[in-house]
């Protein structure tokens, strides 16, 4: 593997508080301070003038659909999409077929990762057997098998008692719980945010109170058990406030926000376009602003995508029947830059922190820094380049994106994993 000499980039590494134009060196798959004269002669030189070089992005919430739903995505195509989006480390959700609630399934996923993945992939396991919410999955064995967190994904554990026991048990292994906060009794048949827009469209509403209830439940259970509960894709204004107050009391909860919840509102559903259907749903402008505010003041710890591929024919349906979810890996950075940097006026290093060091730290992943000797996982992007996103021409196996055909600002030019260029701005190498 040749050494790399990345020249003249704006190097942003929040972990080492670095933000300066300069060079970046890679040898034997690791970040090094400099290269010897001989190494420099042999090194592959990447002219990064005008580009930002930051740690490879980290996404702790993706659905790669393998095993069992490989018509939507595979670990291979999912990691291609990740690389094209500047991500070098991702955490995949366990809602596969079968769900990842046995060590055999985790081992299978790890085997496929080893064979096919072009970026680092870490699996999660289920909290309950087959995500049925009835009995605890073999959490200790899953931890041994290599999961970095447990979650029942979209099937939020409804029993408070079972969730409490899961918290106590997982804490024994220092294993965080990720929770999709949704009270099912309040969301039967719900397909979009409950409010004026759902009233107008005649669609069944998903009230934000159903999210707030479980967020509050999780805060109470984290307080009671001491377990780390990570609230996935927060979308409700009140939930942000609940988490803000919990953090002020040093309760061990964390939270993530999605680019789509920060960029879009339920007004986008006016034409019943299923590419805006996801769970939790797009909410109101008030919720969107509260979410951005929560990210700004640190209430929301990180940005993640909830990359959720579905085929064209699955999404091409009556709104009620189409599955929830959108792909997000290839658009996450430009959309997030648009919302947090250009709209909310956050500093670029702080936004990069939300997508690199902080998610890695929350889940103890060896990623998210350009410090000396760290694995050379690097993302080079042009923060100013405007480009038109064509979802069908993208790298995911699916194309269910609300940004299909949109002009985005900010484009990934090179993605490097362990010192090897895996995406060169045009294709996976």
């Amino acid at each position, binding site marked *: 593997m040749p050494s790399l000499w990345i020249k003249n980039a704006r190097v942003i590494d929040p972990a080492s508080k670095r933000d300066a134009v300069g060079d970046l060196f890679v040898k034997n798959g690791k970040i090094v301070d400099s290269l010897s004269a001989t190494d420099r002669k042999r090194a592959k030189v990447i002219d990064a003038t005008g580009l930002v070089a930051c740690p490879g992005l980290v996404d702790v919430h993706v659905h790669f659909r393998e095993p069992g739903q490989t018509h939507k995505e595979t670990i291979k195509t999912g990691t291609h999409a990740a690389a094209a989006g500047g991500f070098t480390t991702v955490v995949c959700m366990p809602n596969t077929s079968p769900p990842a609630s046995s060590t055999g399934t985790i081992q299978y996923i790890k085997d496929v990762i080893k064979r096919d993945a072009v970026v680092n992939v870490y699996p999660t396991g289920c909290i309950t057997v087959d995500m049925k919410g009835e009995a605890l999955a073999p959490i200790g064995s899953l931890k041994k098998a290599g999961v970095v967190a447990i979650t029942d994904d979209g099937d939020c554990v409804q029993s408070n008692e079972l969730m409490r026991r899961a918290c106590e048990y997982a804490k024994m292994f220092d294993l965080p719980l990720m929770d999709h906060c949704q009270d099912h009794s309040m969301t039967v048949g719900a397909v979009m945010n409950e*409010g004026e827009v759902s009233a107008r*469209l005649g*669609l069944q509403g998903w009230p934000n109170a159903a999210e707030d209830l479980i967020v509050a439940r999780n805060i109470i259970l984290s307080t009671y058990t001491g377990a780390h509960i990570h609230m996935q894709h927060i979308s409700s204004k009140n939930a942000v406030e609940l988490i803000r107050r919990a953090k002020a009391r040093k309760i061990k909860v964390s939270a993530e926000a999605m680019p789509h919840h920060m960029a879009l509102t339920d007004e986008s559903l006016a034409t*019943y376009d299923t590419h805006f259907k996801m769970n939790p749903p797009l909410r109101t402008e008030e919720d969107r602003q509260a979410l951005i505010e929560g990210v700004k003041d640190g209430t929301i710890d990180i940005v993640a995508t909830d990359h959720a591929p579905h085929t064209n024919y699955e999404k091409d349906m009556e709104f*009620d029947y189409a599955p929830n979810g959108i792909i997000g890996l290839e658009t996450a950075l430009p959309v997030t830059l648009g919302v947090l940097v250009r709209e909310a006026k956050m500093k670029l290093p702080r936004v990069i922190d939300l997508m690199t060091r902080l998610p890695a730290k929350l889940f103890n992943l060896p990623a998210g820094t350009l410090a000396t000797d760290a694995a050379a996982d690097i993302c080079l992007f042009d923060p100013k380049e405007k480009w038109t996103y064509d979802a069908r021409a993208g790298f995911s196996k699916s194309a269910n994106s609300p940004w299909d055909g949109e002009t985005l600002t900010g484009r990934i030019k090179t993605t490097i994993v362990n010192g090897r260029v895996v995406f060169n701005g045009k294709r996976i190498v």
Partner: protein
Amino acid sequence: MPWTRRHLLTLEELSLDEIDQIHTTAAAFKRTLKRSVKKVPALRGKTIVNLFLEPSTRTRMAFDMAAKRLSADVISLDGSKSSTTKGESLRDTGETIQALQADMIVLRHSAPGSPLYLSKLLNIPVINAGDGAHEHPTQGLLDTFTMRERLGSLKGRKVVILGDILFSRVARSNLHALRKLGANVTVVGPSTLVPEHFKAFGATVSHDLRSALADAEVVMLLRIQHERQSKGMFPSIGEYTSLFGLNNTRASWLDPNAIIMHPGPINRGVEIDSDLADGSRSVILDQVTNGIAVRMAVLYLCSGGQPESVTVNS
């Protein structure tokens, strides 16, 4: 303004002028219904497919009747018999109907937005005959047609819609049309079935029947569905009737010349006392008859007809 719309999907998107054109055309067609030979040749040689993927009696019969009065050939499919029960998608069903050279689809579907979805896929006109809780545009058109027939201009008139607003496509279509026609609309019923969000339709939201009905010139009742009770939307049918059922005492709060409307089917003794439904103020059966004329107008206009040529054809 000539009529240019090919699909009728919602009343939200219609202009006041378009509503007027439909009503004018419907009035002309209504006159033909009184003749001994009721058929007009307007859609001779055209085939209309009534694709009803959700149960319906009166809407389907009225569309059937309207198409036949216009001399169109009609094929009616219902959900339980069509290939949708074999898992065929709406796209494939729609494209098949189009490939069979049908000239128009009238769609009844439980999923909101499905007529819009189908209209984007096909080249032939799609008429919404009710999509879930979203809209029922021909019902809204026939209701406002009936109101105008009885009251004249609706500008500044007080119209009350009483009952299960939350799940009602009839309420939504009427709200859009009545707003454009300048009426003052109050939606009233239990707070669980009449959420505050309906203020966004420009309506007054009320849970107090007395003030809502006071001096109203139109009261439109909506059917209370028993299954809502099991979902905890209200305690019992009995309690609903005692709080919100229309009886003689409550009807006396209305304007003396007020009309009583109901899109049907009626639950006698639940949302309305039986004798009120049959009484002199009830226009419930006029609504049904007007439903034919309005649907004739819609089928005719969306097939490319123009309002002013109706009298020639008839």
